[in-house]
Structures are given as C-alpha cells and as structure tokens.
C-alpha cells in the first residue's frame, strides 16, 4: 500500500525533490544519484567497483541471455510496480530457458520532473525482487530525457543465467501427447494494472500475480521432470503463449476451458469490460510442456494452484490450431487478439 510505505530516501527531499536534466549529465548530480540511490539499493561486490562493465566469474554451463524493457502506466499498481516487474520479467525469461538467473543489468530512462521518492521506491522494489529471485544487479546506466519526452520512468533489464540441465527446452522439443501445465490462476496482472490506470473500482481487490518463476522451474528440473518447453504468460496471456508454441512446434493443441483457473474478480471484470481472460496479461504465470506420464510428478513439485490444462495432439490440419473445449462441451479455436484488447460498447 502506498500509505504504508515508509520512505527512507537518502537524498533529502527538500534538496532535490525531482529528477533534473543534470542527473543524467554525467557530473556531480549523476554521481549523487548513483551513490545515494542505486549503490545503497543494489549493493554487491560486483557492482561496487563502478567500472564500465561488471567482470563476472566463470560459470559451469551454457549461458542464457535475455533483455526486456518495461513501460507500465501507472508505475505503481496493486501487487507490484515497475521495479518488481523489471526484475521478475527478465528473471522469468531466463527461467523459461531452463536457466538459473544470476546477474542483471538495469538501464533507467528517467523523465525530468520524476519525484525522487518515486525513483527510490522503484529502485527499492527492484532490490527486493532481485533478492527474492536470488539475482544481483551488477551493472547499470541512467539517462534523463526532457519533461514530456518520457512517461516518468522506463527501465530496461538484461539478464544472464546458467543452464545446468542437459535438456533442450523450447518449442522444438514439444511432442504429441505432452501434457500442458499451468502454474496458477490467470489474468490478475492485466486487470490490476487496467483498474489502476483507468480508475476502475471492483468490489474485490485484484492484485497482480507478479512473481519470479525461477523457483518453480528449478523445482521441476531438480525434481527430474523431463521438461520439453516453458513459456511465461505475459502480454497476450495464455492465448499468445499457446498459439506461438503450437505454431513453432507445428503441432495442434487442445485446452479444457474449465481447467484454467480464473479468480472470480478477474472473471467479473472481464465480463463487464468485454475482455477474454485467456488473453489478459500475467507476470507470474507459465505453461510447461512435459510428457503425460510425468504430469503428476510435475504438479506435485509446483504450487497448489497448478493444473494440467490440456494436451498436445498429433500433427493434423495446417496451420496447427489450438482448440478450447468450452464448459458446454463444445469447441472453439483460440485466436490471437489483433491488437490491444479494447473494452466494448455494451
């Protein structure tokens, strides 16, 4: 909660209450920002030398490397904020490669006039998320753009992780007969952000599912499950994830609508707004493709909200379709939303 947040900003507010162009100028003000905000928050021995880049120790295994940029409005929403999103998003992309996330970079583009206390809050949230996920922010960069040329704060994170499994995890490994697992209920992140942005009030509090996924993924791998493919459900939701993998693997899929858990509040909001829960964004959900015989083991290793939601079929029609069996026992095909999901008229 915003009200509960105890502000411990190391830069006196009356001194520099907002970000100024000088903070990106490379001079004393930039130095101040690094020393008073970034270093205290992200403190670790790889970052401490403040060299042009971080020098990392050797790791035993293949590397996974990814990058993602984060631009959410509003910056703070129920269940998370831009900071936790920027860490978890990249951690999750690494986890989907079957990697153990190790190091992150953090690039900030700040808009002139951003309250320093907001920056501090975001940075603290990044530090907390990094600590939960067990990764370190080892290098970074800050730029400041003129007021009106940014949206408060944009963050880019890149991440490196080590792959300790011998499995090849990706759409090419998906096989007909694989079970499709989902690690929890869907749609909360998208609805929470939309509610905050549009000032919509629902009777139930819907909070983002934003969370790191390296824990559950490593639990599967360490538990010996032969994971064929992993995909986190972000923009485009479950719909995009299923269709993308189906197309890459060139295999059709079947999903049982009833087995996909959607919180009542999310369902209600989607009904009112004319949105499809399957296509709403998530930040802490993933699907895993595993051999059918290992589905029960995999479910035991995941959280209690996990479920088998469908199966991969043998090759058939072209292009391969993802079909949903509805609660009425009928079937429909799943289709990518053509752009942004738009609330409908009536």
């Amino acid at each position, binding site marked *: 909660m915003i009200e509960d947040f105890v502000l411990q900003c190391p830069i006196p507010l009356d001194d520099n209450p907002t970000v100024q162009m000088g903070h990106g100028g490379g001079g004393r003000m930039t130095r101040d920002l690094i020393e008073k905000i970034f270093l205290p928050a992200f403190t670790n021995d790889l970052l401490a030398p403040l060299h042009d880049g971080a020098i990392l120790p050797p790791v035993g295994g293949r590397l996974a490397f990814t990058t993602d940029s984060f631009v959410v409005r509003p910056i703070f929403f129920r269940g998370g904020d831009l900071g936790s999103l920027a860490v978890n998003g990249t951690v999750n992309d690494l986890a989907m490669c079957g990697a153990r996330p190790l190091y992150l970079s953090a690039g900030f583009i700040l808009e002139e006039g951003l309250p320093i206390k907001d920056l501090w809050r975001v940075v603290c949230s990044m530090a907390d998320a990094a600590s939960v996920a067990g990764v370190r922010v080892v290098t970074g960069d800050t730029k400041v753009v003129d007021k009106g040329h940014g949206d408060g704060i944009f963050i880019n994170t890149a991440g490196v992780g080590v792959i300790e499994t011998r499995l090849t995890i990706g759409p090419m490994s998906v096989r007909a007969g694989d079970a499709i697992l989902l690690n929890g209920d869907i749609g909360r992140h998208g609805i929470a952000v939309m509610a905050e942005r549009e000032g919509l009030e629902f009777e139930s509090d819907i909070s983002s599912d934003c969370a790191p996924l390296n824990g559950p993924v490593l639990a599967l791998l360490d538990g010996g499950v032969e994971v064929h493919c992993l995909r986190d459900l972000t923009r485009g939701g479950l719909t995009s994830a299923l269709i993308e993998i189906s197309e890459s693997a060139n295999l059709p899929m079947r999903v049982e609508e009833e087995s996909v858990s959607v919180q*009542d509040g999310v369902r209600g909001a989607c009904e009112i707004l004319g949105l499809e829960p399957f296509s709403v964004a998530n930040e802490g959900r993933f699907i895993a493709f595993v051999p059918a015989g290992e589905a029960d083991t995999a479910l035991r290793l995941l959280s209690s909200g996990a479920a088998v939601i469908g199966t991969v079929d043998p090759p058939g029609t072209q292009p391969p379709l993802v079909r949903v069996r509805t609660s*009425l026992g009928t079937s429909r095909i799943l289709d990518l939303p*053509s752009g942004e999901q738009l*609330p409908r008229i009536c």
Partner: protein
Amino acid sequence: MKYLDEYRDAATARTYAEAIARVTTRPWTIMEVCGGQTHAIVRFGIDTLLPPQISLLHGPGCPVCVTPLEVLDQAVDIAARPNVIFCSFGDMLRVPGSQSDLFQVKSNGGDVRIVYSPVDAVQIARENPEKEVVFLAVGFETTAPANAMAVHRAKEEGISNFSVLVSHVLVPPAMEAILSSRHNRVQGFLAAGHVCTVMGYTEYEPLARRYHVPIVVTGFEPLDILQGVYLCVRQLEEGRAEVENQYSRSVRREGNQPAQELIREVFTVVPRKWRGIGEIPASGLGLAPPYAAFDAARRFQVDSHHAEENPECISGLVLQGIKKPQECPAFGTKCTPTHPLGATMVSSEGACAAYYKYRRNETVERSPSAAVGGAAP
C-alpha cells in the same frame, strides 16, 4: 461464480438442446438481433448444439458495425484538430473510416481517449475548460440513456466545451427493414435483451402481428440463448407469432421508464444511414432541438460527404442475415481483424470477427461429437 455459472451449466444446456431437438419437426431460420448474442453463440458453440434444421442468422445489432463511414470520417476529422480531446468507447477506435481510423489519429498526436462511460467525457470537459471535448455517441437503445445523461448534465451545468457526435440507431425499424425485404429469410427473432431492458417490448408487438413472426426477448448467456431458441421454435412449430420474454430477470414489458424519458428529452427520432445497409426511415436518434448546441457535427461544421464502402465487403448482406461471413470471398484472406475491409470484421460483436476468431476452420470445427446429445457434460 454467482450470476454467471448458473447460466452456463453444461447439463442444463444439454437438456435444453434436447428439448429443442424434440420440438423441431421442420427447418427454421431464426435471427439473433444483437451482436452480443452472436458473440456468445460462436464463442460457446451454441449453434453446434442445435438440431441441423435450425439455422441461426446474425442480425444487425452490432453498434460498431452499423455506424456509417461518413460518421467515422467526421470523427477522424474532429479528433485530428489541435484543440480537441476526442472520447470514445474502446472498440470504435479500430473501425476503419474511408481514409483513416481513430488509432491512426492518436498515433499522429491527436488526443483520443477511451472512456468507459460518456459521463467520464463530461468530467474531462469539466477538467479541461480550454479544450473542446467531443464524445462519439453511437449505439442502440442500450447506450442511449447514458449518452443522453451526459448531454443533459452538460447542459444543466453549462459545460459549453462538451459536444457529442451522434449516430444512434434503433432496433425495431431495422427488424422491419429486414422483414419487409424480398430477400428475407428470417422466420423468428431473438430480440436484444439489453435493448429491451431499456425500451421494454411493446414496440415489437405490432411487428410480430404484422409480419406473423415470433419475437423472443432473449439474454446473452448460453442458457438464455438456448431457452430463447426453444421458445421461438415452439412458437414456430405451433404457428404462433407472439412477443415472449425469456430475459425476465432484466426486462419488463414497459421497460425502464425514467431512461426512456431521458432519451425522449434529449433525442429525437431521425432517419439514419446504416453502414452496409443504407438509410432506414425513422431508425435513428439525433439531438432534439433544445440540445442542438451540443451537436459536434454542427459545432465543427464537418460536412457529411458521401464515402464509398469497399466494394469487396459484403457486410451489409451479413448484417441483414442474407449471407454468412464465410460466404464472402475476402473472408479470412483479404479481410482479417488486423486488416478489416468492413466493420463486421472489427468489433468483437461483429459476425465476421466472431467467425474469424472462433470458427475460421468451420469444416474442421464441426465435429459430430458436438452435435445434439453428443456433448459431454
């Protein structure tokens, strides 16, 4: 989930599907008027639960689809002006005008905003007195009361920087246009439950008598639609032509009278052009004379130049139930939701978009197991 799951119960749906199959002895063609019903039918595969003798035709009740090109062009024209904040319901933004759409205006720097209620647009006008705030007031009788309320409130509070670009349409004249066409195939109607929540259903009674056609006021959940079809088929089989109310949990015969009074206060019945169909007499609402000052078309002096529909688009025939979306040669090839030729491919309630989204592989999708009685619980 309360108020949702009870209307989506598989066992009850099967019971209704079986009951429909039992009473059906001949082929019947029934039109669901509202795009929301079309969406539910295709999304839940309700038509695949019906006996093969029943064909459902999709009606003109998609507000996004029937808003004429000229109005969209006017909207684009106004929205692109420098001092304007242009407000609209979300799904109007992607609808193509003859040259551009509101999303393009937005990406070119126009201040185009999605609102969830027209009253929000009035609030934006209150907060931005130096700007002209325009709301695109489209839709059927369902959205008319809220749109009327926005104008009424703006007048009461003297908010002079607010105006509406109106293209409201009415359901009964469109149904009459379909019934009186020589191409008509419709033998029974599922009337739009939310339109009737506002208007009641007395105005459908003369239509049922004159054209000897059963009209069942129907809701939007799978069981509502199945029950509506059941009531309609029973009337057809018994040779009756009455107005029945399936959606009694929301609709009363006389409708919502305060809402109707507000509509009558702010709007007046006018002839209206329907996209793809043409002009239908007395089929729309325009601002009544005391509210004429809030007419954006007049305030911005946008002329209603004639715009040509893409000749390859058959949306007019689809909206009148004469053709099904897949009968269009452009369906799924030249015309997709990302590159729509006509509005029925844009709105989530448009029949073409619904078929594209859930059914574009019809032959594959119509498996025998989904036929009556074969549906698993």
